[in-house]
């Protein structure tokens, strides 16, 4: 039985099309009263191009993950797809069956005895997938796992441009999302100095109706997301920051040994707010502001992929290095709160070598 699980490889795919926040706002029938870029810190995001849907985005992320990995598709015996959006084709085609994971397994020639399934848990989807992979690996049920998410979300932005009401609109948050795919290849290790030393999530379900993604009732169809941001965000920050601080205290984690803190990437102010509130619950400023990763500026909120897109970007820009230690904060509608503590192996060096950008 493995002591820890670790991320053997990471692949991220960002669609090539870029859309600025100014372009998003200029396209709104009713412009929001607040300055979206100023409020969120989001300058631009990647957006899926023609013919790109969840499956294509997830496929690109897995392909990159395998390029960097030392493993072959035939070695994988668990594949979990975690996308919120299940938009798999034109005309807002949302697939119920078969699972996206089964399709991705077929695309990559993953062993037919692999366990494949989809999960859905809003923006906590990928970390829920990591939690499941961690359990199945440690229990010895599987040996190599891929957790993937292909988030095609900007279709709710294009709908919000049409539907946004004047004043405070429940569709404001739809203007902040970006598209991205992320895939991690996980396996077990007996080395307790590497990998996940803790992954912990729970749902505070009384808040489940504060953010709803569903079909639009307007003539143009498609999907929309209604968010009561003024109630959701303070509760997300409060519940999550207390959870993170509780795990740190309970596990006796020395925060000074950790190099980075990556929380869900909603907006700059939000990311900083979570860091500040963690310190408040810890009763000291253990989490230094420079450790708090803000990756929102040119990515927006990429939902379930946001932690792994941030990890990828910060590895590529040299901020996160091999053997660095990272604390993760997970927040999602539901409300879902999560925490993870992680020590990297030489993955950053291998990613740099692959991307031809030596450290």
């Amino acid at each position, binding site marked *: 039985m493995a002591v820890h699980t670790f991320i053997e490889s990471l692949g991220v795919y960002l669609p090539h099309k870029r859309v600025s926040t100014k372009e998003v706002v200029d396209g709104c029938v009713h412009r929001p009263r607040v300055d979206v870029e100023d409020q969120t810190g989001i300058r631009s995001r990647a957006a899926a191009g023609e013919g790109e849907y969840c499956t294509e985005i997830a496929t690109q992320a897995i392909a990159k993950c395998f390029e960097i990995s030392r493993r072959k598709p035939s070695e994988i015996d668990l594949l979990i797809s975690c996308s919120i959006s299940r938009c798999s084709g034109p005309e807002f085609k949302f697939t119920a069956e078969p699972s996206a994971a*089964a399709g991705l397994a077929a695309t990559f020639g993953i062993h037919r005895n692999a366990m494949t399934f989809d999960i859905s848990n809003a923006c906590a989807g990928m970390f829920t997938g990591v939690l499941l992979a961690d359990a199945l690996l440690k229990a010895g049920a599987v040996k190599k796992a891929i957790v993937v998410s292909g988030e095609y979300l900007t279709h709710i932005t294009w709908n919000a441009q049409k539907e946004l009401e004047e004043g405070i609109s429940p569709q404001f948050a739809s203007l902040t999302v970006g598209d991205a795919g992320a895939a991690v290849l996980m396996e077990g290790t007996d080395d307790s100095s590497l990998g996940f030393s803790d992954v912990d999530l729970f749902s505070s379900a009384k808040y489940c109706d504060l953010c709803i993604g569903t079909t639009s009732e307007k003539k143009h169809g498609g999907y929309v997301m209604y968010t009561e941001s003024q109630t959701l965000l303070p509760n997300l920050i*409060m519940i999550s920051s207390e959870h993170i601080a509780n795990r740190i205290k309970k596990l006796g984690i020395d925060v000074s040994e950790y190099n980075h803190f990556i929380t869900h990437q909603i907006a700059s102010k939000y990311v900083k707010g979570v860091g500040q509130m963690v310190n408040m619950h810890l009763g000291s400023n253990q989490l230094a502001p420079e450790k708090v990763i803000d990756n929102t500026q040119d990515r927006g909120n990429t939902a379930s992929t946001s932690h792994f897109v941030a990890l990828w970007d910060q590895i590529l820009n040299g901020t996160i290095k091999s053997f660095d230690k990272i604390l993760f904060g997970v927040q999602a509608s539901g409300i879902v709160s999560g925490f993870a503590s992680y020590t990297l192996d030489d993955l950053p060096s291998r990613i740099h070598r692959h991307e031809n950008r030596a450290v």
Partner: protein
Amino acid sequence: MASRLESIGVYRDASASGVPTVELVKNAINGCIHDSTHRKNEIDYIIHISNYRAKEIVEPAMAVVIQRAAQINSDTESSEKDRTLSFDLMNGSVGFLQAVQVIDSFIAIQKAKVGLVVSGNTKSHIGTVIEPHLGFREMGVAALVDQAPDAGRGFSDFYFCGFPEFFGDYESYVYFREGEWFSCGVQSPAIIDLYVQAAESSVNEYLRRLGRSIRSFDVVIAQQITPAFISKTCAALGGEKAKFIDLTENSDDLQSASIPVGLKHVVENGLVKEGNQALLISVGAGIQGGCATYTF
């Protein structure tokens, strides 16, 4: 350290169609908890597995909505109190065995004591239904999984197999065209035979790995798709018809509820006794097959 089904709740409103998933499941949970030695606050995980819901909600997870409706640690805001993680696991009919294996793993690594797998497929799809699905029975199911009291009981030997060559032979989806939503199911005319083929191949490989014959099992609970699927699967595997449970009521697919409803049926009707073993067989879209052994 195997896991077992400690309690199973089933809810069906035969007089109504389109009952929301949350209502179906909430009623099933009430029955499940009524018959259980566990209390709601002990539930560590809720895994919701149905694919067909009353409304096309993509966020949050339906499991969280069910958690609140059933009042299972729903007011918990602190990680230090009784708490539950809820999420959806979607993989058609094979999802039940996979969800159980997930909970089985959480129990094995001592990250859970009690898990709840719930399903509530309902026919109230959005928009106009065209090319209807194979058809399924609307019902709520709640299966409470905990650690078996002694070794050798409960679930063992999970096995899954994909048949990517049949990937496009069953698909269901919604789409929006010219101002209208449609729910659509597309299936091969030979879908039942393909499911039989997948079941036969999966079970034969499973039995080969275990070094057992199908006749060594006391009862067989296969996917409850149609009477034809069950009889053809029995014949293909050389099984004994009397051991194959058929609850399809003449073509009424139980979908992701098949295995828990089948297990409840054999226990409540005295068809098994302590120490008996059931072979569990799932098949679903993908096409995928799944097997497990259950020792009573």
